[in-house]
């Protein structure tokens, strides 16, 4: 930890007008969640085209305008797709209204079909202070021997729900396979709070004498970056004090 602190210090002091007023180390709590979810596999679909096919099954559509009114979609789009579908042989005009061809019916079937995949699980790391899910880490965190104080403005609010988790998982796990099928996170089956981890932060309070400004630099060891959220929080709460 000392090594890291020294490294960061020397980096900061590369700026000759900077003075370090204070350097402290502390930690914040990070909660891990194990999540059970499942994904589905389905074909990519052009949803408007699919909707049009579905509608032709149900209703007598004679003109693009009828469909545009029903779906609240631009007539131009409908017209374009009608032409395309006629050209590719999905539909044809029969006694004044559009009807699906057998190819069209086949298309609907594949478009509608979904394959549910096995349940999977994942661990998500959540920082209450940032109200953020953090990415997984593979390399180990630097260890500290001392018992570190907890961050002075720590809180234990928690805004987690299934929807947010689904959203995070969708971003991380949605994909397209080699056959062009989509693999989509469909549902979060359950999620469970695990142990709380302490993440070490190195805080530096700086003074730039050239510009006469005080500011904070806070190194987030989990993300390996200067953490603007905490920097700003500390500055907002303490800067006027520092200037006194």
């Amino acid at each position, binding site marked *: 930890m000392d090594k890291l602190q020294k490294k960061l210090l020397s980096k900061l002091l590369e700026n000759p007008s900077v003075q370090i007023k204070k350097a402290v180390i502390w930690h914040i709590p990070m909660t891990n969640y194990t999540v059970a979810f499942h994904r589905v596999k389905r074909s990519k679909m*052009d949803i408007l085209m699919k909707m049009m096919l579905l509608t032709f099954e149900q209703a007598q559509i004679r003109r693009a305008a009828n469909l545009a009114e029903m779906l609240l979609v631009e007539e131009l789009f409908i017209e374009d797709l009608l032409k395309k579908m006629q050209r590719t042989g999905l539909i044809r005009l029969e006694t004044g209204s559009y009807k699906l061809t057998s190819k069209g019916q086949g298309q609907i079937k594949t478009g509608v079909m979904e394959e549910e995949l096995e349940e999977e699980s994942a661990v998500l790391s959540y920082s209450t202070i940032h109200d953020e899910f953090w990415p997984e880490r593979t390399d180990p965190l630097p260890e500290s021997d001392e018992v570190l104080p907890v961050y002075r403005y720590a809180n234990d609010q928690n805004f987690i729900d299934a929807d947010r988790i689904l959203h995070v998982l969708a971003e991380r796990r949605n994909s397209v396979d080699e056959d062009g099928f989509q693999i989509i996170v469909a549902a979060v089956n359950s999620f469970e709070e695990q142990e709380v981890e302490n993440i070490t932060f190195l805080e530096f309070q700086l003074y730039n004498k050239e510009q006469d400004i005080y500011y904070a630099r806070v190194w987030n060891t989990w993300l390996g970056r200067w953490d603007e959220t905490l920097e700003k929080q500390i500055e907002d709460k303490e800067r006027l004090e520092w200037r006194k």
Partner: protein
Amino acid sequence: MIKTQKTEYRCPITLTNKAKDKMRELGLDERSFFLLEKSFHVYIEKYPQSGDGLVSAALFFDMEKNERLADKFNRFVVVLHCLVKQDRLVVTNVTTRPAHIPAASNWRASADLTFDLNAQGSGPMPYGLLDLIHNMPVAQESSMYVKKRIASWEGYLKIQEQSADIPDITSHYSTLVFNDDFSRVKIAGCQLNEKEWKSLKDMSVKLKGIDQDIGKVMKANRSAATVEVEVHGYMEDQARRGRLDSHPREVTFSNFATLSQVKRLRQGFKQLENGLAANPELERLLFENKPPVKEIKKQAKLQFHNRLNEFQQAAVIGAMSAEDLYVIQGPPGTGKTTVISEICLQNAKAGLRTLVASQSNLAVDNALGRLLANKDIRILRVGRTESIEEEGKKFIEENVGQYWKDHTLKEVSSQFEARKHRETEVEAEWAANEQEQERFQKKLAQVEDELEAKQKAQQLYNEIQDIIEKHKMDIHDAEKEGQTVQQLLQKIEQSLRLLNDTIEQDENFLAEEPDRDLFQKELEENQQEIVRLQDSVALQVLENEINQQKLTIDKVSAECEKWKEATNQQDALTGKIAAAKKIDTLKWLMLEQNFTRSLQVQSLLSKLDHLRERMKQLDKLKEYNEKLNRAISYLEKSLGNQHGHQREQLKTTPPISTTAEQIDQLLDTLRSELKGKSTIHPQRLEAFLKGLYGRRSFIWKKAEQLKLNDTDKKVAQEALQQLKQELIAQLKPILDDNKMIFQKYQRDLAEQTAKLTFLQNKSTQMRASADIIPNAKEFLHEKEAKVFDLQAKKEQYAQANLRIERNRTKREQETLQLKQARQKQTEIESRLSELSGILKEKEDEVIPLNEILSSEPEREHEEVLKKLASISFTRESLKQEKEKLPLFQSVQGVWQSLLEEANEHDLNEIRKLYVKHANVIGTTCVASARKDFIESYPIFDVVIIDEVSKATPPELLLPMLKGKKVILVGDHHQLPPLLGNDTLEETLQEMAQESEDFEGKAELKKLLQESLFERLFKNLPKSNKTMLAIQYRMHENIMETITPFYMQENEQLQCGLADSELDRDHKLSSPLIKRNNHLLWLDMPNEPAFFEERMKGGKSLFNPAELKRIGELLKELDDAAAEAKQAGRMEANQKKSIGVISFYGEQVKRIDRMLQQELCLTHLTIRTGTVDRFQGMEMDVILLSMVRNHDNKQDDIGFARDYRRLNVALSRAKELLVMIGSTKMFTERSKNKEARKMYTHVLESAKKQDGLRTLEEVSLHG
């Protein structure tokens, strides 16, 4: 872009040998070439006429439309250069052009030509083709026109090119030092040469190992070997991770972006030159003093989708109706964006594609962000994703699928939800509709009955009305007649009264007056008396005359005597003169009588005087002779006879010249010697005697000379005589005069005596008949007056008599007339009463009818019919809805769930469709000239450019080139373009410092004075421009400060807020700011403690005193906001938006530092910036730090002088504007009169609103 005339011509053609050779060189066969197509699509370009008058032209072959030609030969465009003859084209040369240069242009005419190689004998060229070539413009001339005009815009490019043409600069560096929030980085240890250091500013910065640019150079400090870079926002994460600082440490500064921008601008010039504008008239619209806009055929009739005021409506209608160019002047807060939004929607509905362009990304995003979400509008934002603002992001290509989905899902869901309740509603409505219909059917029947009754009543009413009308007419006639008679009666009565009076008067008069004879007698007596008096007066006059005459005679005879006496005196004088014997007597007379001493008299007198002098000298000589004789004789005696002979000798002593005195002296000496000595030596005596003798003989000699001879005497006699005559002659005229006057008086006397005699005779005669009466004259006047009086009376008397007689006759006549008239009146009255009886009857009959008629069954009928129609319409639509409802509900249900599930991949097709059919495209001016953009969107039906005044003409040209119609929106009373980060003044200042000889400077300055927008706005006809004159941003008190800037326009700036106090209540209350204050000026004294300062080694200014003041004020505002929350005027989580702005960048930097480091303001959201940067923004509250404050006589207020900058500064605030600066500096010390005037207006406005805070007040509260 191109006039596509679809005209096909037969075209005889031959080739010269040179052309044939050229074709072979190009690998073309003459025969087969012309056989490739049945007819070729070509563009004809006309060349300037050669000296010999031959017309020549070039044919450019279209490489897309001529498919077979293109198949065979697609690397180049083939060009045939031809002479145009009456019967054919003669190809003189064949060349090629690169395929990417478009063959079509506004200077070329397109045509389809079928070439005929058998030119001989195939007849002349078609007239149409010849005519086409003859009438088309010469391409080079059109290009030259553009080239010449566009040259004036070169200055803008030169500024940007100044630093543009520099190759990339690469250097090692030692460290990267980031600032507190990673928005800037200082690159230390750069190794560059001098020239490179100078050119760094604004270049983009790239670090080895990082793909994207990390930012832009703000400042290069050569002595410290550091480069300060403004880091792009998207680089912050990388910077925080420390990923930017990696080995090898190598930085590259590149100018690529600027360079490609300038290239694009140049390319715009070129396109215009080459006739590639979508609107073929564009260059003339831009450059002609009177832009030749097409006449507007008819005003569009529109239905609006936004709420627009009259000006906004006019702008939209105008813009939609204009054919080619429309300009909208939009002062601050007047809803320009709303207008743009409405125009876009109108265009979309009309199936037109619109380009919305602006100089800055921010403005483009602003404009797009405010467009209505409407399914007819498909917005696409084109540009580099990282430079697009949040509002524009949803419209970039990768997001439009999502945007479309969100919008469609919202629409579908709301319809779906609404329809859930609709089924039961429809049933209920259906039932209600049926009931209603029934009710109205009944009502219809009833109303129709009423209608019929009314028609009948109407008929009857009309009949009666006719009769009434007729009777009314009769009555009217009778009444009129009656009136006439009445008038006659009155007239006669009046006349009679008058007559009687007159007669009575006259009779009275006659009775009172005495008889006529008595008059006569008195008159005669008086006349006699008058004669008597007249005689007496005449006599009196005569007497007076006689007395007068006598006096005259006395006077004349006295005069006569006087003159007689004078004559006698003169005579006596003459006698005296003649008798005078002596000259002295004459002299005396001359003196006494004051004679004139004429020349003659003078000479005579002097002659006489001379003679007398000689006589006198003789007398003297005689005297001395005797004296000498006595002495001689004495001496002779004394000597006796001694020395006798000697004495005889002595006697002959020669004369000794001597004078009288010498003689007297000699004699005295002799006497004294004789007395003194008893004896005197005889010799001595002899000597004496000798002297005496000598002297005596001298006297003798002298006497001889002087003695008068006879001639002398005679002369004297004559002279005396002459003198006498002369004097007498002088007297003679006086004597004559006197005699004449005397005679005249004698004659006069005789005359007067004769006259007297005559008068006396006359008097004697008159006395015989008249006496002298005392005061006769006065009596005479009296008597004459009396006679005049009497005669008048006599006349009056006679007239009265005559009048009485006449009047009596007249009275008799009139009495008769009166009688007749009275009779007639009675007749008329009886007729009238009869008529009104009938009328009354008829009118009574009408009353019940009126009641029926006043009811209005027609209207009700119409309404009932309308209602029925609407009922059946509703019924019909309900019926349709009832039928469709289940289907719609089921389809939309499915659709809704599909949309909800859809992800990026699912929307791919939609995205493609959307982009294909996008009808509102937004991008920046410069980006509109990017190659990919031009390829996707070569042309737009309408191009709208927002914030036009902030773009330079070359920038504006780029989007303009693409529009068939161009709509410009801007405000030339706000600031002109910014160049880079600086104001233009700063840029110019800097350039002037860097290179003395920057040529474009003067030219550019001139261009900056009047922008393209301003010129167009001023010169376009009314039909092609509008000013939006109602603003909704500012409290009217704030608006007041900027109204003078718009005084020159046709419309005055108005405030559109219904209630400024309510709509723009800032809700704050503090010691300095009252609830009703909306405009404050915190005056800073014009004293050294408050003066501006210049930053070290820089040019920008700041003002520490104002800075401090702003800090205090912000605290006060923060407290006021807290108080407002407590008092419930503001929501607890609401923050006041405050803009702190300044004319100077350095002051803004210091404000930023202060905000970050020294203040903690929890109830405010603060944005800062220079005035220039704030253009287009608005805030609840604005604090303006004016900075300038000094007492340097040489210096002025810098660019705070520009009214456009002040306009922008004043017009950002919605609720409260606080100016912090020296009133004295700006309203008094400013050098420019206009500047003083505009700041004084602001100050006066502030004062009027009780908004001036002086330092005393400030420190009192602060």
